[in-house]
């Protein structure tokens, strides 16, 4: 057993924390890396949010006020890229980094060095992307979907955009591989798959989606690059290609990407709701199978993003029915969350408020999605503010609320201090009122025919745009409360117990608050009683 002895020697060497800048630059610790991911995501949330503020300021009144149309289009384009690749995905991975090893009873992620690289790529990739604002021809302005031939008109920014996407993709794939290896290989004895907390389950499935879809995006943007610089004809009909081909390849990535973003949020609220309803999650197994079905189906619905592009009728019908079928497993999940709360002894702390917010407002986004999944009516909704309202309902109160709920839920565990409950509730209520003022009127604008990605509009849309902008400014400002709550909580506050929440169950709550530097140095024995909440 000389091996085991050398392990232990090795371990003693660095049980103390490394200090200074090296602790962060050279980190092999899942908590430090998770923290960096979350801080980076929060910064990008405000960078992307600032761009949204510019968009809403310009749309406050009809006419051109503050920015020229090219810059406006850059704002919508880069806002989307920053929010998706800079804020939402890193936030999800950050929570996974922090929580998964603690939830499955592991000391760390399976590949800690690769974990560090997947984080550090992000700030550099974001630099590539944001630097494009200072280049000849301006930042990319053809929309985040990068459709050719429009995107090929981008100036010097073009190759930087492509390489930023490649770079971010490398990060995501490494992160996903790490998560799968961790969950498959690092579970504590007795932690069988069907005892995993649902957050872990949703993350395994998300990781599969990432591995299967990010390389396809890499292929798509590589083809754009060669079309622009090396004279290939992938998206050029004059050489036998087809611009629509890009849309197919892009959305083959793009649709699973939607679930990459939303499944971790589903996982988080599946942890929060049972805790504050003080009941086990209703239908645990059906939740697992529903999540897997959603992920599987997500590979067969991509063309519902392109109903108006001119596909054969069979294609339109297939993708319509496939899209409708996703509503079934999603409905199972909504039903299970609701049933979990049924006759529970509920309390409404901030994480629970955000989780219920997801349940209600994600459903609004889900239903408007069903409306657009019906091909003939989508011809009316396509590229209007209706779709903008739809996916913002999914993303803001569906995904960001899940992440914020998770932050409130686990903040006492991470810091050892309770956050300020009054401020948390204030944050929830201001956000929830303003997010509806912001996005609900956009449904009306879209149905009345207001197109997306245009800086000016007909006078008939003026009122709802002004209301929407007011909601936007309030929502943007109210997120500063979150920053204040987090800073306050890190600096001190009422001490949290190990279990933190009365109804909390699972391995992560057996560790001290804050947990030790390496979570479980000796694997815990998992019994039925201590299994998932």
């Amino acid at each position: 057993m000389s091996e085991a002895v050398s392990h232990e020697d090795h371990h003693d060497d660095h049980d103390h924390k490394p200090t200074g800048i090296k602790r962060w630059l050279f980190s092999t610790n899942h908590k430090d890396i998770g923290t960096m991911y979350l801080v980076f995501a929060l910064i990008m949330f405000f960078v992307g949010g600032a761009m949204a503020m510019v968009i809403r300021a310009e749309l406050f009144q009809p006419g051109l006020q503050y920015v020229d149309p090219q810059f406006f289009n850059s704002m919508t384009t880069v806002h989307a890229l920053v929010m998706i690749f800079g804020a939402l995905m890193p936030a999800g991975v950050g929570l996974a980094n922090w929580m998964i090893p603690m939830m499955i009873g592991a000391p760390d992620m399976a590949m800690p060095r690769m974990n560090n690289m997947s984080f550090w790529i992000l700030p550099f990739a974001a630099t590539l992307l944001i630097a494009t604002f200072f280049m000849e021809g301006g930042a990319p302005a053809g929309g985040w979907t990068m459709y050719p031939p429009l995107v090929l008109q981008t100036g010097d920014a073009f190759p930087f955009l492509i390489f930023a996407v490649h770079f971010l993709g490398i990060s995501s794939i490494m992160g996903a591989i790490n998560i799968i290896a961790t969950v498959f290989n690092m579970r504590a004895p007795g932690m069988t798959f069907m005892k995993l907390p649902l957050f872990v389950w949703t993350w395994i499935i998300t990781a599969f989606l990432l591995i299967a879809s990010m390389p396809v995006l890499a292929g798509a943007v590589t083809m754009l690059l060669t079309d622009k610089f090396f004279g290939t004809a992938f998206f050029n009909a004059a050489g036998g290609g087809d611009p629509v081909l890009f849309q197919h390849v892009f959305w083959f990535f793009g649709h699973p990407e939607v679930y990459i973003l939303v499944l971790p949020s589903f996982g988080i609220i599946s942890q929060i709701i049972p805790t504050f309803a003080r009941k086990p999650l209703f239908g645990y197994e059906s939740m697992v199978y529903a999540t897997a079905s959603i992920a599987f189906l997500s590979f067969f619905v991509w063309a519902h993003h392109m109903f108006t592009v001119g596909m054969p009728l069979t294609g339109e019908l297939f993708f319509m029915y496939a899209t409708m079928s996703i509503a079934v497993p999603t409905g199972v999940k909504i039903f299970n969350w609701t049933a979990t709360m049924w006759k529970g002894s509920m309390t409404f702390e901030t994480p629970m408020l955000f989780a219920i917010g997801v349940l209600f407002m994600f459903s609004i986004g889900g239903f408007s999605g069903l409306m657009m999944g019906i091909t003939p009516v989508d011809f009316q909704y396509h590229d209007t503010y209706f779709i903008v309202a739809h996916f913002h309902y999914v993303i803001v109160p569906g995904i960001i609320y899940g992440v914020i709920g998770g932050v409130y839920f686990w903040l006492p565990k991470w810091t050892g201090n309770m956050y300020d409950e009054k401020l948390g509730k204030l944050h929830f209520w201001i956000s929830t009122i303003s997010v509806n003022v912001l996005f609900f009127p956009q449904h009306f604008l879209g149905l009345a025919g207001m197109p997306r990605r245009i800086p000016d509009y007909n006078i008939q849309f003026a009122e709802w745009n002004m209301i929407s902008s007011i909601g936007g400014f309030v929502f943007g400002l109210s997120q500063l409360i979150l920053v204040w709550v987090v800073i306050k909580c890190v600096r001190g506050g009422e001490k949290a117990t190990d279990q933190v929440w009365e109804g909390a169950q699972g391995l992560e709550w057996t560790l001290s608050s804050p947990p030790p530097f390496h979570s479980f140095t000796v694997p815990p024995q998992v019994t039925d009683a201590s299994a998932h909440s």
Partner: protein
Amino acid sequence: MSDSQGAYFIPEPSRWPIVGTLALFVSFIGAAVMLNGSGFGTFIFGIGIAMVIYMFAGWFADVIGESLKGLYSDQVDVSFRWGMGWFILSEVMFFAAFFGALFYARVLSVPWLGGEGAGGIATHEFLWPSFEASWPLDVMPDPANFMVFEEVIPAFGLPAVNTLLLLSSGVTVTFAHWALKKDNRSGLCCWLFATVLLGFTFVACQAYEYYEAYHHMGLTLRSGIYGSTFFMLTGFHGFHVIMGATMLLVILIRSMKGHFSEKHHFAFEGVAWYWHFVDVVWLGLFIFVYWL
């Protein structure tokens, strides 16, 4: 993993991840500046690639050192297996995007341009009414910006030889593995050497084929959708063969130095998996790009 109870392996803080990130960052900036038409970019790109090589060398040296010290338990071994397996799947999906483009062009976009199908009638009539669909697409709908080629590489010439080379290399790498499992060092090294040789011979044949295509057939990256799919698919595959053969070379050198044991040799197996993946992609290329 019963033998790792109470003793997990966590690597020391390491500088390689941040070095690797910087290396890729510099390479991407260099490549972008280069594509925007500045010669200075080539210089930056060169530095970036040198940094990438430095990172790989340094990172793998650390990993090999840890492995030789016996720090890797069976559990770490399994993590590596999952990691390599899913990495290969991500590579498969990357190739899938290009195969998808090939199938889309052959089955949908070229026939539509030629007037087939309900949607094709208008496409054909309004865009290039004199265009006739064919595959290989040697006459483009609008040849103005594309090179017209005279012929394509026939499947049962050099590509068939290449198929034979790669398939045999799959066999030799398996023989090497069997030799390793029997602790037959000389057998291991000989079969590995044969595999590396076959791999690089394949690359040489591909290079010759590209030379022929560019200089005698007029078939280039600019030859419309046929040239685009042909060179992007075979080019990325060729790049992967070079990577795989280089990895095999490293394994060969390590084998000659006496690394690996009959039971503990995931580096060898990981590279062998990768080599088989490259092999399978080639079969797809041979059938769908060259043959059919």
